[in-house]
């Protein structure tokens, strides 16, 4: 049985920004052009009907609906009122969390008041201080969007702004980034690793150094930020770090599609009603998430027969042999599925951020041990992890062998085999 509780509704398939790293518009995926610009309310109703049947048959009583895009705030205010009403009248018995992920450029008092009234929590995407934000998050005319976004964030303090989402840009000096977060008085922040894989390096990565066993630019950046954050007694919540700390401390049952060992209970609804696996996988190759399933003609459960969904749902179990033998596997989980892709091996690779994850997890584990009183550490059955030892162990013979069937599945996603 697949337990899916997060549904990402691509209610608008276009955007008023044209971010240079966006997988939708600038990373080779053109499928959005075939989508209707807006998801019709009939499609929302059809989805709610299928959701009802899915929740009733599985006993799921809690669902998160994420309004996403493109840019979801290109829809009209009344659209959101109607959407929420559709869900609440079609399946009144379940508990909802409504969220919207927006670029923030049109968020004003009217929008905040409406979203607050509808109990829709807001997340805003930002790329850092003005200079860096405006390099990437630009309008179609090339102008930066920082001024509008910063204004929306400041306004959000009065309302239901939940937090900021930031795609990591290692070119931003961490002191500058942290100062910006303090200036904007951010109380909650999440960090995302940029989309990319072995055949499409994310921005900021020096591909010439990829084989260097000491090259961990993302971890170095994270660690710098972590140190500043740790020193600050008035620190914001940084979800990515906190989740890592909790997992390293030994807390069970947490994680997400980037880290940890949980299943990935997320499904995406495109604006034409297509039901798909998370669209950031499209950065691997065009069509990887494509199927024939649509809420107007299918049940939501039909997606569970789909190969890509099955692999994605259990992505943290379906890992390559190196991950199975890795000392930090329970924390890293092999990383996000999309980051493992190569044309040569399909998904039979560790995440392309593997060395960074080893470095970061090692650092945090070491820091916790160094921070705890020595007499407490002496009572624990634990040794500090050593980056070099772990990296070198990847060249040794593996004790745990990968199930050949799993390996075959991972490899079968090579672009040429899927074509």
């Amino acid at each position, binding site marked *: 049985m697949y337990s899916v509780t997060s549904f990402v509704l691509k209610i608008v398939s276009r955007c008023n920004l044209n971010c240079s790293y966006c997988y939708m518009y600038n990373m080779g995926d053109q499928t959005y052009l075939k989508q209707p610009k807006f998801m019709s309310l009939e499609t929302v109703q059809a989805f709610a009907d299928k959701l009802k049947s899915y929740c009733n048959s599985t006993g799921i009583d809690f669902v998160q609906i994420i309004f*996403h895009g493109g840019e979801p705030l290109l829809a009209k205010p009344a659209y959101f009122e109607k959407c929420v009403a559709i869900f609440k009248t079609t399946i009144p018995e379940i508990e909802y969390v409504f969220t919207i992920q927006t670029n923030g450029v049109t968020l004003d008092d009217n929008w905040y008041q409406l979203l607050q009234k509808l109990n829709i929590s*807001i997340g805003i995407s930002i790329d850092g201080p003005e200079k860096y934000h405006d390099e990437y998050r630009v309008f179609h005319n090339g102008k930066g969007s920082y001024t509008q976004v910063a204004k929306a964030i400041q306004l959000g303090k009065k309302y239901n702004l939940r937090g900021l989402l930031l795609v990591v840009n290692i070119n931003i000096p961490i002191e500058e980034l942290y100062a910006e977060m303090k200036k904007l008085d951010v109380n909650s922040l999440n960090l995302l690793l940029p989309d990319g894989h072995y055949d499409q390096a994310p921005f900021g990565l020096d591909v010439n150094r990829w084989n260097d066993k000491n090259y961990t630019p993302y971890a170095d950046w994270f660690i710098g930020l972590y140190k500043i954050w740790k020193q600050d007694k008035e620190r914001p919540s940084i979800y990515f770090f*906190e989740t890592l700390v909790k997992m390293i401390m030994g807390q069970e049952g947490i994680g997400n*599609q980037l880290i940890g060992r949980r299943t990935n209970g997320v499904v995406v609804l495109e604006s034409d009603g297509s039901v798909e696996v998370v669209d950031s996988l499209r950065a691997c190759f065009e069509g990887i998430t494509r199927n024939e399933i649509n809420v107007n003609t299918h049940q939501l459960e039909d997606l569970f027969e789909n190969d890509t969904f099955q692999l994605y749902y259990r992505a943290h179990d379906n890992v390559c042999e190196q991950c199975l033998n890795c*000392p930090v596997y*329970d924390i890293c989980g092999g990383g996000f599925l999309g980051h493992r892709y190569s044309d040569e091996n399909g998904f039979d690779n560790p995440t392309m951020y593997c060395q960074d994850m080893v470095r970061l997890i090692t650092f945090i*584990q070491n820091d916790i041990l160094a921070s705890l009183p020595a007499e407490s550490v002496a*009572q624990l*059955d634990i040794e500090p992890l050593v980056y070099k030892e772990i990296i070198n162990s990847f060249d040794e013979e593996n004790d745990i062998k990968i199930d050949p069937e799993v390996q075959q599945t991972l490899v079968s996603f090579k672009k040429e085999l899927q074509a």
Partner: protein
Amino acid sequence: MKKNSKITSNLKSKEVVNKALSNSNEDQLDLYQAIFGGKASANCPVVAVSAKASRASGYDKIDTFLQAAPMDPGAPASPASDSPLG
């Protein structure tokens, strides 16, 4: 042989860490105390723990990769209040 990467993996080690987090005044533990709900209240630790546990149940109830903050219905934006180690 795989090394253990998790600081605590059984009840005894969880108790050791919980105690260290609850009792220490060290600055260097401030971050970890904040993530795990701060120092135990001297007056009423039981109430403090039960409130934390109720919040913890909502943490990561759903996948959070796609959004700006963990969604814990009814809780404030900061998730910094899970009962540390069960």
